[in-house]
């Protein structure tokens, strides 16, 4: 009886605790958001009042639109008699999200497979790793047009354009996954390897029952970097592909009209940032579900 009571009590407590920590977290987020907005508006008011200039920079509606103007712009028509800006950006964000999500999955799978390969063979590691690193020193802006020009004609019609962008996004995301997979797979406790050896476990069993589960926290740390990067990769990839339907197209478009409507570009940036955050949080949620490790393995 006493045991049951404790068990119930114990299962109840974390729930209340969880609600409390969630509330604290949301409160903190809002406080920081308010603080940052305050800094933005405060700086602008200060600079305007004192006539402060930083080189050529001068705070005004063009360089620093009011926060309420940026948010308000979302609910203005995007062009005369056109749909609201937020509707346009929502569709653009969905389009870019598709490219980025496919890119992230492709990049993660390729990055993981490459990490396994490099972890398996020291020779391959020494031979290939410099080129893997070199691949990341080439600016994505130089790679993107090549992927589009070379890849697009070879893609089936359903994948054309956005498929090439997904590949560019994958190019930007695989690297951290490879490095951390390699690190995670090779950093297992040698005694756990001895244990598997004593059971005469196959290479395959050691990989899936020991190395990969042990490497998961490392891999998720990499995915947290890769997820927002996949959004950046998709946006940048849209530019040379001349894709108009995504956020990259929107940024390019509103860039051209910046003189007449600065808040539109800022609003687009806001949506792009929100998309990146959404990707990040999705990875965090997946980590919560998939990684079942002792508490010290969570950052």
């Amino acid at each position: 009886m006493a045991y049951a009571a404790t068990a119930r009590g114990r299962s109840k407590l974390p729930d209340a605790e969880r609600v409390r920590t969630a509330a604290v977290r949301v409160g903190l987020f809002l406080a920081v958001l308010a603080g940052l907005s305050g800094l933005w508006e405060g700086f602008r008011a200060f600079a305007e009042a004192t006539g402060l200039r930083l080189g050529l920079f001068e705070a005004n509606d063009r360089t620093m639109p009011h926060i309420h103007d940026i948010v308000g712009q979302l609910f203005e028509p995007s062009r005369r008699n056109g749909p609201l800006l937020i509707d346009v950006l929502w569709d653009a964000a969905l389009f870019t999200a598709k490219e980025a999500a496919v890119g992230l999955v492709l990049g993660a799978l390729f990055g993981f497979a490459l990490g396994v390969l490099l972890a398996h063979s020291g020779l391959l590691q020494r031979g290939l790793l410099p080129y893997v690193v070199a691949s990341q020193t080439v600016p994505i802006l130089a790679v993107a047009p090549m992927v589009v020009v070379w890849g697009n004609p070879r893609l089936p019609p359903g994948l054309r354009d956005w498929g090439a962008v997904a590949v560019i996004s994958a190019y930007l995301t695989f690297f951290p996954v490879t490095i951390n997979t390699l690190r995670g797979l090779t950093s297992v406790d040698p005694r756990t390897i001895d244990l598997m050896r004593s059971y005469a476990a196959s290479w395959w069993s050691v990989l899936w029952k020991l190395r990969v589960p042990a490497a998961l926290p490392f891999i998720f740390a990499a995915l947290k970097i890769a997820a927002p990067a996949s959004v950046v990769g998709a946006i940048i990839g849209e530019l040379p592909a001349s894709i108009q339907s995504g956020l990259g197209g929107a940024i390019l478009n509103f860039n051209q009209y910046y003189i007449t409507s600065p808040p539109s570009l800022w609003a687009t940036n806001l949506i792009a940032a929100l998309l990146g955050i959404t990707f990040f949080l999705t990875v965090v949620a997946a980590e919560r579900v998939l990684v079942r490790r002792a508490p010290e393995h969570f950052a």
Partner: protein
Amino acid sequence: MSGSAVVSLSNVTKAFGGGVTALQSIDLEVQPGEFVSLIGPSGCGKSTLLRIVGDLVEPTSGDVVVNGKSARQARLDREYGIVFQDSVLYDWRTVSKNIGLPLELLGWDRSKRADRVREMLELVELQGFGDHRPWQLSGGMQQRVSIARALSFSPALLLMDEPFGALDEMTRERLNAEVLRIWARSRSTVLFVTHSIPEAVFLSTRVVVMSRRPGRIAAIVDVDLAQPRGADTREDARFFELVTEVRDRLREGGLDADRTAPGEGELVVGGETP
């Protein structure tokens, strides 16, 4: 004779790089059902010897025969259950799934596995903890899980490398009694590395006393204490005699614990002498 032995070592030598001889000319036979302890100071090669038997380390020369075959073949045939000083549990698996890991690797089906895991939890008295995570258990309980995992597939030989070295004295004594109970029930053969004299005497049918530089067998002490052993055994006059004898044999090998440098003083020389 060696035809029936579980472990038969002849002239086993292990040299590491840099001319360090870890083990020299080791001859040892372990018969079925025996509980043999290897005791000695750090650096005597007792753990290395255990790892050579388990085919985790290759000897430089000499023969290792386990159940009539090479150590490697015995490993491939899953003849070994190993327990390390740390429990080496996988923290992403529940207690039950840790115990069932070797069974998974042996390709047992789910229901057969579940039955055996239940038996094992009962054997080490951890019923009700199957769904816990390893980190939710105390060190002693974790080590019991590790023992259950080692015994789950009924290996011919249980290799234990200072399994209770990291535990407090109270837990260690309780687990000693538990290991004897499990040993009697499972009728397994055990090779046990320890640096505690009372533990070696309490558990073993034979104590192999080793000396270092190079690691050799200095003496073998037969432990003729009655079975089953329990709390009373530790009060037995014969128990103290045997503890003294093992200690004397260690001294003869130049291994007086009093002369062990601080920091190396891992040798527990019977604090319980009368």
